[in-house]
Every structure is written in structure tokens, then in C-alpha cells.
């Protein structure tokens, strides 16, 4: 019985080493949010926590690659995440309750926000970079860790050209985590 226990422990240790070598990770992250309904926006309390599991691929100070599927050890599909999207602490959940939703804070200044978005990839088409995005609209709130843009439209920038995005049509509210943002231009 003692031998069996020892063997089980050894196997468990070997499995841990094996999976460590496989470098399989679980990451929690946030994404930008879009609201088309005023009531839905008012009800919104906290960012959804996304969870993703995969093999850790290339990572840098800016981005992290997580691979979902491999064919003959070649990455086939996965996700490229901005490091700024990752949730590392519980403090995130406390702090992100403070998004200002009062109309009195609404300055109606027009802004253009350049930011970098999460990319899902498939069919071995691994992107080198995060997707560059541009959102224009009226700044509703920029306190805390998030920028809220009212009456917004968002487009994707591919090879320095503007391309359509699923949110290209006007959206009532767009919430972008500041950690995604590269620059903001104020037009008024």
C-alpha cells in the first residue's frame, strides 16, 4: 500500500513536470464592450471576465499568444491578447465598478480613440500584431480605467487603411479599457 502511494505521488509529480513542459496556461482577460440600449448600459455593473486556456506561444511586454489547436506541433488556432487586457488581481473587480454613467458627466466633446484589440486566429494564420482599431464619438466618461464613448462608430485599421468592423454602424455606448488605448485625439 505504501509502495502504491509512493508510486501515485511520483506519477503525479511527473504529470506536473510534463504539463509544465507543455506550458499550458489559463488566462483571465477583459474585452471592449458595446451597448446599443440605454437601459442595458445603465444595468451594466462590471466587465465580464473572459477565461481562455491554451499553450503559451510568443509573448512580449505588449502581447501574449495562446494556442488552442496544434497540427503536427504547428500552431493552428488561438488568440492574441494585449497584455493590458489581462486580469492579474481581484482589485480589478473592485475598481471596475466605478464607471461613471451619469448624464451630468457627459461633456459631448468629440474624440477619436486609437486602440489595439484582441485577435482570434485560425487556419495557421497567426497574426504578428494586435488589431489596430479607431473609435470615434462623444466622450461620455474617461474617469477610472475605462473610456466610455457615446454615439460611437468603430473601424479596423488594416495596413494603415480603414476597414469595416462589426461595430462600424453607430453604437450607443462603447467602453474601452484604457490599457488598450494608444492615443486619443480631441476634436472640439
Amino acid at each position, binding site marked *: 500500500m505504501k509502495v502504491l502511494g509512493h508510486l501515485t505521488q511520483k506519477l503525479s509529480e511527473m504529470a506536473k513536470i510534463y504539463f509544465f513542459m507543455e506550458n499550458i496556461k*489559463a488566462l*483571465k482577460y477583459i474585452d471592449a464592450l458595446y451597448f446599443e440600449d440605454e437601459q442595458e448600459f445603465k444595468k451594466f455593473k462590471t466587465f*465580464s471576465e473572459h477565461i481562455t*486556456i491554451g499553450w503559451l506561444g510568443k509573448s512580449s511586454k505588449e502581447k*501574449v499568444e495562446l494556442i488552442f489547436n*496544434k*497540427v503536427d506541433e504547428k500552431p493552428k488556432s488561438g488568440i492574441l491578447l494585449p497584455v493590458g487586457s489581462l486580469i*492579474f488581481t481581484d482589485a480589478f473587480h473592485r475598481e471596475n465598478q466605478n464607471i461613471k454613467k451619469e448624464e451630468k458627466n457627459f461633456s459631448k466633446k468629440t474624440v477619436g480613440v486609437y486602440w489595439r484589440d484582441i485577435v*482570434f486566429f485560425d487556419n495557421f494564420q497567426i497574426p504578428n500584431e494586435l488589431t489596430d482599431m479607431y473609435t470615434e464619438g462623444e466622450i461620455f466618461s474617461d474617469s477610472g480605467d475605462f473610456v466610455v464613448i457615446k454615439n460611437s462608430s468603430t473601424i479596423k485599421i488594416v495596413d494603415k487603411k480603414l476597414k469595416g468592423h462589426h461595430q462600424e454602424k453607430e453604437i450607443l455606448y462603447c467602453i474601452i479599457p484604457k490599457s488598450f488605448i494608444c492615443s486619443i485625439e480631441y476634436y472640439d
Partner: protein
Amino acid sequence: MINQDIKKGDTVMVEYKNNSKLLEKTVGVVYAITDNYILIVHNFSGFLPVDQTEITRESIISLEIILPTEINKIEELE
């Protein structure tokens, strides 16, 4: 073929033959199990699956229940 008992919610690594008969590997959470298929989810928004792989039982070569490492610090990515 699955030699190990799995249940919904287990995190697994699966090796299987894909439609092109090539060896494919995937990791994720077991979201659904039927007589013919298992559904592995790689990405959840809240509790909703966002990205998943459906695998036929007969294509499975190996399946292991795993414990992925959760990253809690930026330094752990390096």
C-alpha cells in the same frame, strides 16, 4: 478512444486525427459529452463558450485531464 473517465468541466488535452487525417492536439474545458462527440471549449466569456473544438470519440488517440497554470503576474509570461 477514451481510456479515462471524463466529465463536464474537466480541463483536458486531447490528441486526435483531424478531418485531413493529421495528428491534431487541443486543450480546453469539456463542455459537452455525447455518445459520439466531445466538445472542448478554449475560451469563455463569463460562462458562455466563445471558441470551441468538436471531436468525434473515434478520432481520439489520447486524452489527459490536466491542471493548467493560472498566470497571476506579468513576469510569469516571460
